[in-house]
């Protein structure tokens, strides 16, 4: 277990204060916040690259605050992935074991095993510059996991990937965590990513952790304006899986059928939670001719101005959706309560989480 107590870190004029944070053994915690919130400074302090002014960090009850980074056993995966460009993929993965003086035969066996497990055994002889973003990501995970670290500290590990590789990287991370049960702290600015991956999520703002809880609790019950704003207040819907059709899940939500992209077919009858970002929905007066798999004819229930953006509330049967649009599209569309509009969104915009 990782425990942080009364931590104070100064970085120039920036102050980081973390009164208390516990990460259980085997837990996957996401740390969500906007850029400049102090997430990276917090990770760097945990790994040992920054000395706190006050406070302590414990791993399984042992105080590691004064240990150098190499003695902490916390494997760091930075945003840039940082594979060593002068080493092959094999040497990159083997590095941590070489440092530990592992015998060559044992080392070879373990590198092959982890590479096979992560599906990169065909890349071992390649140099990092020849790899795609998704492949680099896999190598970085293999390199970190091979030393069986106390915890994995991931700093925005998916932000450098395109959308397709990001989805498969998420699935890989979920599978690895499920099967290996390592402890992880995963920093992200994306609330939906935080909710998809984290059993719990901590929200950081202005150098402090302002709320910790299960993602749905945080979304449904933000303890402050900042959390409400940062979490993006996505639409949260509950539904039941009907069937899978050509890689798309059909999900019944209060009598309305929604299509969601999900990499693996889910069992029929399974209760799920759906997350749909308010900004991922497009409004129009006529049905949209586009690749969006979801088109709902909805009634406008209300319109609210939120600074430069306008939130439109829609209902369709028992489903209610909130949509953010810009002032420009608001003026063009001019939606009035009681009117009917089409709401369109992609199947990939609907994130499926198991119901708990």
């Amino acid at each position, binding site marked *: 277990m990782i425990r942080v107590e009364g931590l104070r870190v100064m970085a120039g004029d920036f102050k980081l204060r973390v009164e208390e944070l516990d990460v259980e053994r085997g837990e996957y915690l996401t740390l969500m916040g906007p850029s400049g919130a102090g997430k990276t400074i917090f990770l760097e302090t945990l790994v040992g690259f920054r000395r706190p002014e006050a406070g302590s960090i414990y791993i399984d009850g042992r105080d590691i605050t004064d240990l150098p980074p190499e003695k902490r056993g916390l494997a760091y995966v930075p945003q840039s992935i940082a594979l060593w460009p002068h080493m092959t993929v094999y040497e990159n993965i083997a590095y941590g074991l070489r*440092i530990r003086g592992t015998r060559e035969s044992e080392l070879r066996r373990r590198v092959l095993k982890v590479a096979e497990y992560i599906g990169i055994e065909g890349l071992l002889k390649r140099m990092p510059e020849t790899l795609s973003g998704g492949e680099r990501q896999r190598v970085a995970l293999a390199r970190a996991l091979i030393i069986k670290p106390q915890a994995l500290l991931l700093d925005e590990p998916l932000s450098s990937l395109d959308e397709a590789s990001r989805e498969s990287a998420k699935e890989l991370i979920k599978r690895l965590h499920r099967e290996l049960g390592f402890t992880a702290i995963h920093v992200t600015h994306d609330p939906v990513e935080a909710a998809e991956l984290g059993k719990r999520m901590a929200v950081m703002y202005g150098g402090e952790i302002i709320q910790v809880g299960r993602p749905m609790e945080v979304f449904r019950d933000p303890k402050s304006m900042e959390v409400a704003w940062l979490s993006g207040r996505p639409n949260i819907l509950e539904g039941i899986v009907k069937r899978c059709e050509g890689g798309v899940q059909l999900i019944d939500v209060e009598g309305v059928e929604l299509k969601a992209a999900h990499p693996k077919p889910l069992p029929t009858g399974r209760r799920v939670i759906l997350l749909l970002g308010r900004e991922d929905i497009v409004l129009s007066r006529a049905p949209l001719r586009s690749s969006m798999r979801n088109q709902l004819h909805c009634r406008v229930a209300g319109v609210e101005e939120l600074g430069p953006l306008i939130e439109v509330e829609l209902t369709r049967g028992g489903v209610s959706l909130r949509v953010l649009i810009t002032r420009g599209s608001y003026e063009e569309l001019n939606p009035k309560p009681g009117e009917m509009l089409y709401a369109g969104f992609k199947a990939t915009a609907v994130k499926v989480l198991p119901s708990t």
Partner: protein
Amino acid sequence: MSVEPGSPLAGAKWFLLYLSGLASILIAVLVIPLLSLISIGGGWIPDTAMNPKALSAVALSLGAGAVSASFSTLFGVPLAYMLSRGDFRGKSLIQGLLDLPLILPHTVAGIAVLLAFNSRAPLGQLLSSIGLRVEDSFYGVVLAMVFVSSPFAVNFAKRGFDSIDLELEKVARSLGASAQRVFLTISLPLAWRSILTGWLMSLARAVSEVGAIMVVAYHPTVAGVLVYEWFLTRGLKAAAGLSVLLLIASLIILTGLRAMEER
């Protein structure tokens, strides 16, 4: 002159002509003296190449230059790494100090070295007691060369370390490598090209040095000093012959090392 398709200079015919005109003046100033040297000195090469004094001067220049460049690199790389990664008091002072030998007149550099290391000065006494007398000796030649050429070794190595993404070192530390191990397995291999370039530039600068060496150690005579001596005693053409010999030797070594570096 033409430009590549898609270049922002496309169609700028007159401007390109104007640029080429100005550029050719500088190229002429550089190339014509070299050509004159080769055409006049070239005829003296057979004579010079048979002269044992000339040969040993060229060998001394290159040998002492290599020792000087290696010394500068060996002690300059740690300094470069500290300057690149560290944040300490007097850092900007050291950085300024490193540029000083580049602007100091070379005779002044020679006098400074001689004052500090002559066999009656405290440091010089210490060196003399272990057999490293500076005046008129190989060590003096090397020391004068190091004084004027080591900034190249340090600055190039620092540039190499500066260009490394710090995350590469941080990941290695988090995976269990000590700072020293990270330096040896990550930083040094990634900066080695720059370090080698620094060694080469430092060698080139050392071989071209005359002023400082003349003050500290006129004998044993390095090629640069011998060129000057022959210019005064045997005339312009003899000096040109020796110059071409030095030029050829330097070119062979530099292109050879560059080719090695490219691989």
